């Protein structure tokens, strides 16, 4: 795997909260699967020192897109980069979401920056429902970003400024209660804040629906070496960078705190 230097094609806001970064990479674009991630060295040198792990959002031809939020030092710096600047990237890393799910109905539940890998999955494989939870209208993705699966999307916002005023997990509960006769017909895939995903797993378990969750942990190496990004599975502490970030629900022992709160 090369440590590739790419040139930025586009880097700017898509809404009140997210930025979109696009670059071209022949090597990457052919290999990447939804749910996998890359490690970006935002700037050479030691400030910031570590790379930033980011999930893929979209791959079109050789064009690779990432959606991110400018939060800390690394992502703020990333947001300041312009078209033509260079970045060092390593990837694709990690285990992807299942693309083929044997004709089951795919339910996606995303929150915050957990939405991009699910959008990638929905674009590539389609979905039955895509529940997206945000704090407010500010974070809602523009229509052009979700046109391939717009019909399937349901929004919830915490302040009620867009879609339904609810927690996104309530939509999942409603759907499962209303329509599920055979849980085997459905498959849940989720990515978002850990607290949201803990709730998704609880609901899924109550209804006996299988699925996968992508855990977002603080990460250093991305190669299974530092053992910093661990998730508690039946095998014990497991590196989410190499054995995840996507784990099947049945890999996570019930009644355990799987990650940091």
């Amino acid at each position, binding site marked *: 795997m090369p440590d590739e230097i790419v040139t930025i094609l586009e880097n700017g806001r898509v809404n009140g909260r997210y930025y979109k970064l696009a670059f071209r990479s022949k090597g990457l674009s052919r290999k990447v699967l939804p749910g996998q991630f890359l490690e970006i060295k935002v700037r050479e040198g030691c400030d910031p020192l570590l790379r930033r792990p980011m999930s893929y959002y979209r791959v079109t031809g050789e064009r690779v897109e990432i959606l991110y939020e400018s939060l800390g030092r690394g992502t703020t710096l990333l947001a300041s980069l312009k078209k033509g600047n260079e970045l060092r990237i390593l990837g694709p890393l990690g285990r992807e979401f299942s693309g083929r799910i044997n004709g089951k109905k795919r339910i996606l539940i995303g929150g915050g920056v957990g939405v991009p890998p699910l959008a990638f999955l929905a674009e590539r494989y389609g979905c039955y429902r895509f529940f997206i939870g945000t704090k407010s209208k500010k974070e809602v993705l523009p229509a052009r970003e979700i046109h391939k699966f717009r019909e399937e999307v349901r929004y919830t916002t915490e302040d009620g400024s867009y879609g339904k005023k609810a927690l996104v997990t309530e939509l999942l509960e409603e759907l499962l209660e209303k329509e599920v006769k055979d849980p085997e017909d459905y498959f849940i895939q989720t990515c978002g804040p850990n607290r949201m995903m803990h709730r998704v797993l609880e609901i899924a378990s109550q209804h006996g629906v299988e699925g996968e969750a992508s855990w977002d942990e603080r990460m250093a*190496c991305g190669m299974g*070496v530092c053992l910093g990004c661990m998730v508690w599975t039946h095998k014990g502490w497991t590196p989410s960078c190499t054995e995840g970030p996507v784990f099947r629900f049945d890999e996570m022992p019930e009644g355990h705190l799987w990650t*940091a709160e």
Partner: protein
Amino acid sequence: MVNLETHAGQLRFKNPVTVASGTFGVKDEFARFVDYRKLGAVITKTITLHPRQGNPMPRICETPAGMLNAIGLQNKGLEDFIEDKIPYFRERKIPLIVNIAGESTEEFSTLARELNRCRKDITALELNLSCPNIEAGGVRAIREQKLISRTIQAVRKETGLFIFAKLSPELGDVLETSREAVRAGANGLTLINTIRGMAVNVHSRKPQIAAGTGGLSGPAIRPIALRYVYEVKQALPKVPVIATGGITTWEDAVEFLIVGADLLAAGTANYVNPRATLDILEGITAYCREKKVKSINELRGSLVTHRRP
């Protein structure tokens, strides 16, 4: 051709570049990026007698020019290491330095005894006497119970393998503990382990690391490591030293060579640049060529002092 061959006591390495324990895995984790045979040696993540699950999450946190970690020596234990890991290095003839830690002097003994059976496949042992993130056998216990000498003596009794004692300023005065380690039977020293530090999330008011504190590594500690390597090599010039502490680029590595380091271990750098070791090696070679240095030994301990007015 630049001669990079490095001698440490009776040991010979094809070059001085190696890795800091815990930053390069225990087997083939970096084989996608680095041909291990090009390195002077590989130092493993700490192996303990029994498997360890390690500490709760979060375990790491980035800090200015460095990171804190409190992994807690998660590893699969000695049996797995002997059965699954050693053969990988043996088959490829990769010089292997095995880092070990015990919760007691007895555990250190047992580890040394068992590994001594595999001595043909092992270049040296490195004793982790300074882990900041475990209770028994950790840096505080070793300091408070004055276990440095006893632990090294216990290991010495079990094996004729070359022993590097890995120390940190948290054990007390580094020069004093270095002397003590050598008197107790260590053949070489590894300077320095991480230094305990702390960071707090101002929103949740929780420590950034679940364990409260963690070991600080990376470029942030490099000047401290350099100073200790310098002072120890001044006082104990014949004792081989593996330098570690923020070595990220070839310039960093050359700094350590100039103050007398024998081997140079890249640590946190591997997390940022998986090819860090090879980049350092190529950089040192290019530097030697440019400066017309034929043998790396000409650089070792070649520090030039400022003239006094």
